């Protein structure tokens, strides 16, 4: 097996022994605390064209952030990309060029500080992933800082979701103490969760020192359920930027293949952003269990209350390939071929 094939199978292996990966089939009664409710009346989401990872992204990110109503003036910001693994031949990760462009854009918009933080899911060798992926050099060139969340100081927070049965979640101080967390997922299909976008990306904030490598405590409790608890509990204002310039279709989040979509999605409501990104992938967000759950109290998936800004979805929407067993996620009416 070559390196690429190996990395593609690594994600599967990490959760397999105790995965709890089958999608729950029933909507549970309301388990969440009223303190978790943050569903807005209206959710602005901006969709912008971006056809390559290059220097133009600074301006595109700035425009997208402004269209979606982001104000970072005076704020300490944490960017959370997706670096669950690294494979030079695959599109697993949020592209380092987009990460540094976002860092520079938010600095120019008045952020007090912007750091990049991640808790890699499979491997403990942060130095290898940082240097091999190019993120180390890219951040060094602009004076950026990376924080490994796997070994961060932690604080307990009462779980406001109560989907997993875990009474509290240990969250990293870097994230919990920030003024704003920007989730920066890669736009990908996911062989257990359906899609991995802004909400699923937050698995990576959970410290490996406590939750293990792979994050076994959460897998035991169920992936969908853990996504819900993390997103319900996180006490920090959020913004989300989905890297859909090149996405991943098929057997994602690691084993899939690249799909050029040429798009970035921006918004503060992670549910609305994920619903929009799902539609860009030809997937009905209401058929993804955790997104449907999140619509009940965390945000909006109904396009009638998502205020679309920038480009129309139809310009970029494609049917991302879905593995067997995930075909039921397809939107009833395909938006493009």
């Amino acid at each position: 097996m070559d390196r690429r094939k190996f990395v593609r199978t690594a994600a599967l292996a990490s959760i397999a022994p105790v995965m709890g990966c089958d999608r729950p089939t029933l909507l549970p009664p309301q388990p969440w605390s009223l303190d978790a409710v943050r569903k807005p009346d209206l959710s602005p989401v901006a969709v912008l064209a971006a056809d390559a990872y290059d220097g133009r992204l600074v301006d595109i990110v700035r425009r997208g952030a402004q269209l979606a109503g982001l104000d970072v003036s005076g704020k300490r910001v944490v960017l959370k990309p997706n670096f669950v693994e690294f494979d030079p031949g695959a599109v697993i990760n949020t592209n380092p060029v987009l990460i540094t462009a976002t860092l520079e854009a938010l600095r120019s918009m008045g952020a007090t500080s912007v750091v990049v933080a991640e808790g890699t899911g499979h491997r403990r060798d942060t130095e290898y992933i940082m240097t091999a992926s190019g993120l180390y050099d890219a951040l060094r060139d602009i004076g950026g800082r990376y924080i490994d969340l796997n070994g961060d100081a932690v604080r307990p927070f009462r779980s406001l979701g109560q989907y997993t049965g875990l009474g509290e979640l240990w969250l990293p101080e870097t994230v919990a103490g920030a003024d704003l967390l920007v989730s920066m997922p890669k736009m990908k299909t996911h062989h257990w969760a359906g899609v991995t976008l802004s909400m699923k990306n937050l698995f990576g904030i959970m410290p490996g020192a406590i939750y293990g490598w792979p994050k076994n405590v959460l897998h035991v409790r169920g992936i969908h359920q853990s996504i819900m608890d993390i997103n319900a509990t996180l006490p920090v204002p959020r913004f989300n930027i989905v890297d859909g310039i090149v996405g991943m279709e098929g057997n994602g989040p690691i084993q899939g293949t690249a799909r050029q979509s040429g798009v970035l999605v921006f918004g503060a409501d992670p549910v609305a952003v994920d619903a929009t990104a799902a539609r860009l992938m030809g997937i009905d967000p209401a058929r993804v269990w955790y997104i449907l759950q999140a619509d009940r109290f965390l945000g909006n998936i109904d396009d009638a209350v998502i205020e679309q800004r920038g480009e129309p979805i139809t310009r970029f929407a494609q049917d991302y390939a879905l593995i067997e067993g995930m075909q039921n996620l397809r939107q009833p009416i395909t938006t493009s071929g």
Partner: protein
Amino acid sequence: MRNAAILERLVAIRNPDGGWGTTADRPSSTEPTALAVMAMAAAARAAESTAGRSWLIEQQRADGAWPVTPSVPEPSWCTSLAVLALLDHDDGDAAARRGIDWLLVEKGIGVPLRERIREFFHGTKTTALDPTLRGWPWATGTFSWVEPTSYAILALLRAWPAGPPRPATDRIEEGRRMILDRTCPGGGWNFGNKRVLGVDMEPYPDSTAAALLALGALRVDPADVRESFDALERMLAETRSGLTLSLSILCYREWRRDPAAMADLLVADFDRTGFLDETRSLALASMALADATVPFLVNGK
């Protein structure tokens, strides 16, 4: 001393409370402090190693285990590393023995009922591992994985240099079998799965070095791990990091192999990245390059 600069950086990032955080700007926690204490002891830095041991002893739980960090009350996989740092020191041996007692009770779970039901109805096995073999988990109440099992075996072997008694021998033997059972096709280890849904898995270099350290300490037949050493050498040809190179050097020393070429690469990598100022990598590198024997080595020099 080739590790002088690395050692000095490690000393420089020590916290005022005597412990070490995962990086320079973080509060003290168990894994980095245990590793740094071992590095300080190997470098004969008595003041720093004594203060570090005091910090570790203060954090020990009533049941003998150590938490990941003082703010998290649960027992953890870090216990093995704290034991290794404290054993055979007048001020730490008693605490280490209580840690050993906890390690003998701590055990990974088997395949959960939900997964067994899923496998029954789907008619397929998700993994190819032997679910009856249970080593040590990262977090209590979860599955056994290669790295925490390797560290636990090292701790138990160091606790009884003349040979452990039962039930320690039983746990060590089950851990040995678990690690060997998790060997990837072609050799080496990742976090602990060799085949998933019929797809063969490949190893990570750092996990492979940790497993080979434990198996070297157990004096397993070299023929049983020849493929894994070959796999490690293949991976080392394309991996540069303080963590991987340090664990690999310690592994080679345990097996009485020559690590000189890797030592050069390790020093060069420190010059390049400073190992990102991570205490774990700095401490392991300092031990890997030390002339003295270190607690990670049971038989090697």
